[in-house]
């Protein structure tokens, strides 16, 4: 992402997208296969819980629905942050960037709470193929959200240093692409793990 400094708004490029934005799109294409592999692994192992807790026994769907809602709302604030910067409204841009980062952190907090609850209830990382696949898939997603939060904080820092101006709104747009992608992936994960009826023991 460092080369976002090279401002090029995509005039005269082959695709009409700037190099930086196309790079992010291409990267997200690759990420689809990363999560595709992890989701497939989970689907193969969701009913292989051995003597440990079964997914249907342990999931707290209302709780996870709330934290999913929080994450989806962060996409809204991300859009507002970009719109603010495109208008040249630095102050609101900062507000919404901070809101996005906070909502993301709230989601991560929910995940930490969920993980610790599961471990207390006897679902450790090594309990069964199901538990390994569950923690790995949701953990990888959590790492992606966390990296997104770091990027948002970096944007905030550069905003306070005065370098995040209207002319560089594309940087926010590109990080926004990543953030929305991570949200969309969560919609898939939430559906596959929680909403599709899970086996019980």
């Amino acid at each position, binding site marked *: 992402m460092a080369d976002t*400094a090279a401002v*090029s708004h995509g005039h*005269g*490029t082959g695709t009409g997208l700037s190099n930086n934005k*196309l*790079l992010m799109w291409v990267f997200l294409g690759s990420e689809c296969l990363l999560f*595709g*592999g992890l989701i497939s692994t989970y689907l193969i192992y969701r009913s292989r819980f051995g003597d440990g807790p079964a997914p249907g026994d342990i999931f707290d769907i209302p709780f996870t629905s709330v934290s999913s809602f929080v994450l989806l709302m962060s996409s809204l604030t991300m859009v507002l942050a970009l719109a603010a910067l495109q208008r040249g409204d630095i102050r609101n841009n900062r507000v919404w960037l901070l809101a996005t980062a906070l909502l993301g952190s709230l989601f991560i907090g929910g995940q930490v709470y969920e993980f610790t609850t599961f471990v207390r209830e006897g679902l450790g990382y090594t309990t069964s*193929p199901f538990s390994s696949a569950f923690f790995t898939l949701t953990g990888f997603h959590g790492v992606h959200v966390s990296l997104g939060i770091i990027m948002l904080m970096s944007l905030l820092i550069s905003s306070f240093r005065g370098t995040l101006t209207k002319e560089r709104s594309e940087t926010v747009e590109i990080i926004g692409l990543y953030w929305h992608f991570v949200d969309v992936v969560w919609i898939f994960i939430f559906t596959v793990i929680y909403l599709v009826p899970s086996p019980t023991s």
Partner: protein
Amino acid sequence: MTYTMELEAPARPLGAYTRPKANTGWRDWVTTIDHKKIGILYGAAAMVFFVIGGIEALLIRLQLATPDGTVLGADTYNRVFTMHGVTMVFMVIMPLAAAFANYLLPLQVGARDVAFPRLNALSFWIFLAGAVFLNMSWLLGDSPDGGWFAYAPNTGVVFSPGKGMDFYAIGLQIMGIASLVSAMNLIVTVLNMRAPGMTLFKMPVFTWMILVVQFLLLFAVPVITVALFLLLFDRNFGSNFFNPEMGADPLLWQHLFWIFGHPEVYILILPSFGIISEVIPTFSRKPIFGYPFMVFSGIAIGFMGWGVWAHHMFVSGIGPISVAAFSVSTMFIAVPTGVKILNWLATMWGGRILFNTPMLFASGVVSMFTIGGLSGVTHSLAPADTQQTDTYYIVAHFHYVIFGGALLGIFAGFYFWWPKVFGHLLSDKLGKWNFWLMIVGFNMTFGPMHILGLQGMSRRIDSYSPGFGFEFWNMFATIGAFIIALGVLAFIVNVVMSARRARHEPPVGPDPWDARSLEWFTPNPTPVHNFDDEIQVEALDEFWHRKYGEDENGQVVRVASAEEVCQDGSATDTHLPSPSYWPVVLAAGLPFVGLGLLYTLWLCVPGAVLILMAIYGWSFEPVDDPDGPHGHHNDHDGDEPVDDGSGATPAEETAEEAPVG
């Protein structure tokens, strides 16, 4: 595009590190972000690993030359054949393809550099870090021994208790980052930075094949990333992905690996297809036959390559329906490959063929790959494959496609583009020695393996007892392997001798082969700034069309000499990207983290410090150094590299000079 610098100006105070200034000596090579130098670095590093992997191959053949071989012993033998495979696939063929892609892709699409020069340098250094890390396992006494495809649960901690498979998993993970970054970079370069007028279907076939390969990498690398993570977690954190005792599926690894692994096969072969699609038309004095078919068959291979992975698993118990489906899809993928072979033959047909060394190697690819392709089709017949699985027949097959297909094509590329890169030709005489030694040795080594395999000799065994009829062909193959080594030696001698001879000879001139594509518009060797002026592309084989036109009878006649068409490399106002320390610093941190995960977490600390320092330095380093030295004696230092094609003025004059052809 000077406003970039103004925007970057506030970031200067935090960029407290001094920027590399040198453009001579080793410092230049370490900090360079020039795609041409990075291409050369890829090539040089890969050739070092080629020699290492070749020595491993010779050790294997020595062990197997006679029955009850005692050269290596079973344990070392396992490590040697594993590392031979891993080295040749990930550290030789892939980086050699990357060498050609890096050097040629921007030139063939008429660009100043790749889209992200610093990321490009990062790709190379990360590749080198991963490769060195993996080979450090030899020094630390625990190299991987689970075969290049590392089937879990066999590679789980129960059956492979040492650290070897951890080296494998972390090493490939590191090199995977390099492939992924490089793939993203080159995709953006091709899609965004083509010269004006160069539509997708005016791109050279080599550029097309490299583009397909980058998409394959983009989508295949994350799959093996997942598999390697799961293996690492199983081995180190006790997860249960590959642990059948806890109910895990023992086929999960095989599926994940081959979903990556079969596209990987095309990642290895398609660059070579691209290279010979440039070489064969040039030396047949004809345009490529059926250009759209060449392109679409390459794309078709790219798509279909995702639907054949389970043919590696016919005997693993995936069930008759899966076997039948993958059997059929495997037969189908032979169709686009066959299209390519027929098109190469049709290109040669009726041409005035010049058998210079590049053409010899290219015809070697066509013939040897056909043999390998045909033995591949025999695997698609599941009943036959049941007999062939895990025998030397398989070893013969994949060496015919990877050595006979990929490597020979890369050698064709060496001889073809050597003047482009180094400004002098390689000796044709030594080149012919190189070719004939390699092709004879290659067929002596791997031809008999078909017979050995059908006789029932297992692959991966470290020795065999006398009396099975294996003795003769094994000795024969070992002799062949040393003849290949002589061929490689002839290449190395050729490189040294030709460089020496070139000092006393006049320069090679801009167009030694009467070539066809955009890279030959630049003088040889390519100047640091690539093109003097942007090229307005009007046809496929633009360079050729500016040299030749038609007379009133429709006969092709020469209308311009190469010297008239080529640029003279004298541009003085080209912007160059500034060199940077950070790619190499970031990459240097990765092996420390890897070793830290294996031995003591404390080693991760210097690794993490290097990585964080590099990311921090990188982020606050302007793409261009506002008050740095001017990169080259006749070049202004630069603006951002990405504005090629967007900021420059269209080269109207150049277009007007072009004869209509």
